[in-house]
C-alpha cells in the first residue's frame, strides 16, 4: 500500500493579492505621468560602446609608448599581448554583458570567471616581465614611487572606462547588477593593465604585479560597488 504524498493536494497559499485602490492610483499616477516613447539602445550598441572606450584607452597608452621611443621588440611584444587581452575583453563583454539579462551564466560561474581572469592577467604580467627584484629593492623610494605613479595612472584610466561603460549599461540588469558591474570593472582593468604594459618603461615583476596586475582586482571591486547602484533599475 502506498502512502499518500502530503504535498500533492496541499492548500498552497494564493499567488495573487490585489493591491489597495490607493496604492494602485499612486502607481498609475507615477507611471503614466508625461508618458512618452522610450527606446534604449540595444545590448550590441552598449557592448560596442564599452569596447570603444577600451580601444580609446589602449590608443592613449600606445601613443605614449610610441612617443617615448621604447625598444621596438619590447613594444611589439606588449602590443601583441594587449591585442590578445582585448580579445578577452570582447569575449567577456559579449558573453556576459551583451546577453539578455537573466540568460547568462549562474552567479558562481560569473564570479569564478571574474576572479579567474583577473588572476590570469596578473600571472601574465608577472611572467612576461624580464627583470626580477627582491622585495627590499622594490620598496626603495625610486622603484616604489614609480609603482605608485603607474598604479594611480592605471586606476585613473580604468575608472574612466568603468564610469563610461556603467553609464552605457545603466539600469539594464535587475538580476545581478553587482556582478555585471564587476565585469565592467574587470574589462576596464584589463584594458588599462594591458595598456600599461605598453606604456610603462619598467619590466620588473613586482612592479608589473602591483601597478599593472592587481589594478584589475581593484577595478572589479569598484565596478561591483558602483554596478549595484547604477546597473539595477
Amino acid at each position, binding site marked *: 500500500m502506498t502512502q499518500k504524498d502530503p*504535498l500533492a493536494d496541499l492548500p498552497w497559499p494564493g*499567488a*495573487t493579492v490585489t493591491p489597495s485602490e490607493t496604492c494602485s492610483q499612486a*502607481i498609475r499616477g507615477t507611471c503614466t505621468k508625461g508618458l512618452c516613447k*522610450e527606446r*534604449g539602445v540595444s545590448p550590441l550598441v552598449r557592448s560596442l560602446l564599452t569596447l570603444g572606450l577600451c580601444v580609446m584607452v589602449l590608443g592613449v597608452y600606445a601613443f605614449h609608448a610610441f612617443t617615448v621611443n621604447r625598444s621596438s621588440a619590447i613594444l611589439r611584444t606588449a602590443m601583441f599581448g594587449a591585442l590578445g587581452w582585448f580579445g578577452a575583453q570582447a569575449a567577456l563583454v559579449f558573453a556576459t554583458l551583451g546577453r539578455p*539579462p*537573466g540568460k547568462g551564466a549562474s552567479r558562481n560561474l560569473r564570479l569564478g570567471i571574474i576572479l579567474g581572469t583577473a588572476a590570469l592577467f596578473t600571472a601574465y604580467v608577472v611572467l612576461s616581465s624580464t627583470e626580477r627584484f627582491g622585495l627590499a629593492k622594490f620598496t626603495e623610494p625610486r622603484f616604489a614611487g614609480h609603482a605608485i605613479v603607474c598604479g594611480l595612472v592605471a586606476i585613473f584610466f580604468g575608472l574612466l572606462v568603468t564610469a563610461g561603460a556603467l553609464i552605457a549599461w545603466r539600469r539594464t540588469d535587475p538580476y545581478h547588477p553587482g556582478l555585471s558591474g564587476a565585469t565592467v570593472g574587470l574589462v576596464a582593468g584589463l584594458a588599462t593593465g594591458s595598456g600599461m604594459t605598453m606604456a610603462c618603461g619598467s619590466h620588473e615583476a613586482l612592479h608589473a604585479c602591483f601597478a599593472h596586475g592587481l589594478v584589475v582586482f581593484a577595478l572589479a571591486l569598484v565596478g561591483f560597488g558602483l554596478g549595484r547602484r547604477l546597473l539595477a*533599475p
Partner: protein
Amino acid sequence: MERYIDGNAEAFDGLYRKLSPTLMGYLLRLTRNRARAEDLLQITFTKVHRARGSYLKGAPVLPWAVAIARRSFLDERRAAAVRNEDLSSDGSLPEPRPEAPSLPTEMSDALEIALQRLPESYREAIELTKITGLSIQEAASVLGTTETAVKLRVHRGYNQLRKELESFQR
C-alpha cells in the same frame, strides 16, 4: 510591455492589471506586512517605469519584474538592518515584534509555518516556482543560479516540508 514602452498609457493599465496581483502576492510573502508590500510594489513599478527603455523586446516580463521586486525587497531589508529598529509611525518607539506563531490548527496554517521554517534558499525556490508560478528556468535567472540548483532546492525543500507536515498530521 511593447506598447507601454511606446508611450501608451492604456497599455500600462493592462500591464499593471496583469502584473500587480502576482507581484503584490510575492512581496506580501516576502514582507508578511501589507503596508510594506504596497510600498515595495510602488517602488517596483517606479523602477519598471524608469527602466522600461532597457527592456529587451520579446523577453518575458514577469521574471524581469519579479527580479526588480526581489531586489527592491533585499535593498529595503538591508537598509532596515542598518537602521536596526522599526520605529512607530510617530518615529519614537520601536514597533512591537510579531508574536511567535501559535500551534497550527489547519493544514494551511501548518503549511505556512513549515514554509517559514525552511532555509531561505529552499523557501525562495519553492515560492517562485510553486506559488508565484515561474518556470524553473525563470526562477533560476531570478535567483542567479542554475536550473539544476533550483530543482535541487525545490526537492530538498519539499522533503523538509513533507517531514514537518507528517508530524502535524499525526
